[in-house]
């Protein structure tokens, strides 16, 4: 279906990433947001709170991030598309409820505008150090989807994609911005509503007597219950069967947890978005994401001007990780270079996927700023054969 023309702010704007993310959420159909203020993410819901009365929807400032991350799930079960926004310290508090969303298959979006950590860290300065937390932060086995924008335009475009993926897979989607992208202002083109494709919630066609809240139709994603039409259902964070009732057996656990993982893993090839350029003949390939990808691109251009054969691979989807693509790069590259605003997180995934086929070089940065272009360039020069 198409976006609601009443809600989409069609036009050419000069917006920062936070505001663009908010516009993306509204265009994607989000009509409920909950949050607790935190730099550098507050502007997203600040704008939502001022925009949403004219669109028709609700924003609630909750007492803390735990409350924000669960009240939005109530809104989803009530029929809304919903999201919350936060940064590192709040993201930590939300972990329990991210697991709850994964377990109850509640489609929703968690925006993390990453800042320096651990703990309170650097409220106004960037990092990309929550990448593993996005994947593994909640306990138990579950699969997650995470996207990484590198510009305000992508904050708009990919927020819509995040909501669409959440609906398609009935899963929480992590939207991993960083402080630079969030606070950077650039041109953002918002297309006409009829150009914006929205994934609607998939409701069951079964009668209320035949409906099984967690019954699947072969594609591993259950249909949703239409709220307020007499359907009875039970939801719980406990391991449950197709009826939604607790079932404390290894068989039920195996069936449920494998499905939660498989519904996303099986689609990985389709939902691992990336940008690749000049990798075919490259001797060294730089792999990056978020704001770092722009600095890396600059380094690639400077390196090429010196005659170096450098390729560029940008992760747009961080999770599920593009194993196959990285393995393909590792088969012919002499080395893979991974700059990121942390002391080595996604580089471990690159190493795992490369499986020893070529050296993988980390270019870490503790956060609080971005790499100097020269730091990435010299790492590229150093590993040149």
């Amino acid at each position, binding site marked *: 279906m198409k976006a609601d023309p009443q809600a989409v702010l069609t036009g050419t704007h000069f917006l920062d990433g936070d505001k663009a993310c908010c516009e993306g959420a509204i265009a994607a159909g989000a009509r409920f947001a909950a949050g607790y203020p935190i730099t550098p993410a507050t502007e997203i819901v600040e704008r939502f709170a001022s925009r949403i009365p004219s669109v028709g929807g609700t924003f609630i400032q909750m007492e803390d991030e735990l409350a924000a991350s669960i009240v939005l799930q109530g809104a989803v079960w009530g029929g809304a598309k919903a999201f919350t926004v936060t940064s590192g310290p709040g993201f930590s508090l939300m972990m329990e409820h991210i697991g709850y969303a994964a377990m109850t298959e509640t489609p929703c979006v968690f925006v993390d505008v990453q800042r320096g950590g651990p703990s309170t860290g650097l409220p106004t300065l960037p990092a990309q150090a929550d990448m593993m937390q996005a994947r593994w932060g909640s306990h138990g086995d579950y699969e997650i989807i995470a996207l990484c924008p590198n510009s305000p335009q992508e904050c708009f475009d990919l927020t819509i994609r995040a909501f669409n993926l959440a609906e398609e897979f009935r899963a929480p989607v992590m939207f991993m911005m960083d402080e630079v992208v969030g606070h950077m202002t*650039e041109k953002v083109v918002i297309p006409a509503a009829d150009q914006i494709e929205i994934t609607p919630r998939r409701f069951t066609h079964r009668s209320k007597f035949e409906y099984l809240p967690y019954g699947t139709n072969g594609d591993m994603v259950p249909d949703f219950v239409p709220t307020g039409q007499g359907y009875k259902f039970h939801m719980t964070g406990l391991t449950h069967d197709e009826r939604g009732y607790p079932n404390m057996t290894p068989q039920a656990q195996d069936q449920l947890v494998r499905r939660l993982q498989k519904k996303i893993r099986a689609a990985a090839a389709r939902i691992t978005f990336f940008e690749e350029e000049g990798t075919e003949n490259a001797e060294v390939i730089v792999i990056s994401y978020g704001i770092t990808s*722009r600095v890396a691109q600059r380094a690639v251009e400077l390196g090429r001007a010196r005659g170096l054969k450098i390729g560029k691979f940008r992760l747009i989807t961080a999770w599920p990780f593009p194993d196959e693509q990285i393995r393909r790069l590792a088969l012919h590259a002499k080395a893979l270079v991974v700059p990121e605003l942390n002391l080595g997180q996604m580089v471990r995934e690159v190493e795992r996927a490369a499986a020893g086929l070529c050296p993988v070089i980390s270019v870490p940065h503790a956060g609080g700023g971005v790499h100097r272009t020269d730091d990435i360039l010299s790492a590229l020069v150093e590993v040149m054969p």
Partner: protein
Amino acid sequence: MQLTEIRIAGFGGQGVILSATILGRAASIYQGLFATMTQSFGPEARGGASSAQLILSESPILYPYVTQPDILVVMSQEACTRFMPELKDGGILIVEQDLVRISALKPNTRVFSVPATRLAEELGKRMILNSVMVGFFTGVTQLLDRDAVARAVADSIPPSLRDLNLKAFSKGLDYGLSQSATVAGGEFEDVAYLED
């Protein structure tokens, strides 16, 4: 246009960020250029240090921060002292002349001075000094088309203050067009020259 790095700095409440937003909007929306604006500010709403970085280019901008500004606009003494050392040799310095006393300069800097606060007060509202400054910037740098900037001013200001800000923009523009640069090296007394 070659990649041009601009830093605008002053106190919170002077419209530092808004000035950079207006110039970035003019460039990216009305002139088809690429513009990237980033900002930094203290925890205070007013009175604290405030600084905006604006990069303009004909090609996509990759590195998000200003490394060595071609143009430095300062509206406070602290901003002038702090950011002068990073100005490019031969760059442009624009100062709020009643708030900034230049005590150090880079060689070959072209200096333009404007009493932006006073001109704003003459129009009845001190708050609109940023529109005066945007007009002055447009006049002296000749970097952006004046109509594009005027449209960006109109877009960025609430309707009730729009006319006043457009007047302020024109006043700053005219003042800028009547000025010629003072080139560092001789004309300034008691000024230290900073090495690159």
